[in-house]
């Protein structure tokens, strides 16, 4: 089967530390795939390399077979990769609706002169941006908060807002960085439902998450990394039973016969 996103041999150093070491994996279209691993394993670094926030030292990243490794982040967004951030990165001084409208930036094109003179084509485009923005707000259920400042929302809603903003770019694949971080049980249930809805709308989902129940529940496939290296990959059941994974999470296997 062809893959939507393909990463091959991704390596990233920070000074002397190898944050990512030769990571290779694929995401199939329509999948929900999770990346897990202990703290400091390199999950967010991997996300940053895929979305372009960081430049990988080595390796190849392909979206639909086309190399995107040389593109800056904004071009990757236009190519169809969108993301959320581990520490919610909303625009605090803008309203909830305006936050989502920014997500439409890469799908609209009126530049300074047209915007400054408010030409007909610009007004038409603005109307379209706003309509689409509302539809994504409704998708995550924030339409009633539209005029509030984004900074006034509780954390759970801010995470939803970030997802709406990411979806507004109409991505092929959306990267969710710890979407359940700081959410309560009820909110997490809603999130699981939302992630399914995102997949059903035709957007592939790649997520980093610490909430194991959520990961095991929603993922089609899981990639486990530890100390920047790929440890295991497969469906939730096989990953759960993999001895290397159990070791990584429970600590080193100690051979008691030596004592």
């Amino acid at each position, binding site marked *: 089967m062809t893959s939507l996103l393909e990463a091959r041999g991704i390596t990233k150093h920070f000074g002397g530390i190898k944050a990512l070491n030769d990571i290779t994996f694929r995401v199939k279209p329509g999948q929900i795939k999770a990346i897990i691993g202990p703290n400091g394993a390199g999950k967010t670094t991997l996300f940053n390399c895929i979305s372009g926030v960081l430049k990988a030292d080595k390796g190849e990243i392909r979206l639909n077979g086309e190399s995107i490794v040389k593109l800056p982040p904004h071009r990757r967004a236009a190519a169809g990769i969108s993301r959320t951030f581990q520490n919610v*990165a909303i625009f605090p001084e803008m309203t909830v609706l305006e936050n989502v409208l920014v997500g439409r*930036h*890469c799908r609209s094109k009126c530049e*300074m002169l047209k915007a400054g003179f408010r030409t007909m084509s610009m007004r038409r485009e603005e109307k379209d941006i706003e309509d689409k923005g509302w539809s994504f707000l409704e998708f995550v259920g924030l339409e009633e908060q539209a005029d509030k400042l984004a900074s006034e929302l509780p954390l759970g809603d801010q995470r939803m807002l970030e997802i709406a903003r990411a979806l507004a770019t109409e991505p092929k694949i959306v990267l969710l960085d710890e979407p359940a971080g700081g959410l309560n049980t009820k909110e997490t249930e809603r999130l699981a439902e939302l992630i399914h809805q995102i997949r059903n709308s035709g957007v592939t989902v790649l997520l980093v998450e610490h909430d194991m129940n959520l990961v095991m529940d929603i993922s089609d496939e899981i990639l486990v990394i530890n100390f920047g290296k790929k440890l295991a990959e497969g469906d939730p059941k096989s990953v759960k039973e993999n001895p290397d994974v159990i070791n990584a999470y429970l600590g080193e296997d100690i051979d008691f016969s030596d004592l």
Partner: protein
Amino acid sequence: MGCEKKKILTLVSFLVIFPVLVNYIPAISNYLEVMIFAGIFCLVTIGLSLLMGYAGQISLGHAAFLGIGAYSSGIITAKFGLSPWIGIAAGIAISSCIAVVVGIPSLKLKGHYLAMATLGFGEIVFIVFNEEVNLTGGPSGFADIPYLHVGSFEFSSELTYYILVWAVVLMGLFFALNLIHSRVGRAWRAIHGNEMAAEAMGVPTSRYKLKIFVLSSIYASVAGSLYTHYICFLNPSSFDLFWSIKFVMMVIVGGMSSVWGAIIGTILLTYLGNEWLSAFKHFDVLVYGIILLLITMFLPGGIVSLPRILRSKRTNSR
């Protein structure tokens, strides 16, 4: 956009009614002259407000762009005898080219570092104005700059110039407001809010920062041309660091969160500088310092944030 229309209407009626009231209120007896200067400075601060308040970048060198516009107009009309409109166009062209060259490296910097870089740029331009004696007349400057004219009509009286300047300001304001309420303005505010997230949403952040830097330099350059053709005399002292700081101050005192703040702050501080502070003589800098200190301590959102603060106080006390 609806509430903006009301504000524009208020401003326009204010501009129309005040020249009539002048004769009855002694405190604003120099209304026309002061408001011509205020209008010219408003053009600078509208651009600066887009740059600072919306896109979140700072410039401590905007007096340089004012100067480039002023000297382009002055030199082209007084020394080469060409039409003042060519001077204005040349000022815009030169300013935007310089803004691109200065902006590309310096906009990679953030916060204090960007402030220092633009401050250095302003000083360089100021030195050029002083030292290029053949072209600029050096520290003593040059005079005999003609008035602006359309055909045989000359903008030589204060009233006609007042109308011209504020018509240009209103056009500039209109353009700025349209930008603010568009994807371009939202992209600038997104950069201000979180540059990394803006980039991830598809905003080419470095290009957008450069665009607003160039646009604000054009606003300042047009203001410089209008300044030249009003006082008909040029020397470098109006384009030094103190003026760059004053422009930033006008934006901050009025309130960075909106272009209306820039307009209020500019009118207020121009009145202070040209009229009300003359009693302090050279100590006026001290008064500016105190105002800036008080505003940043007690009213960090500037004058435009006053109504909101008062409203929330009233609802709290209930």
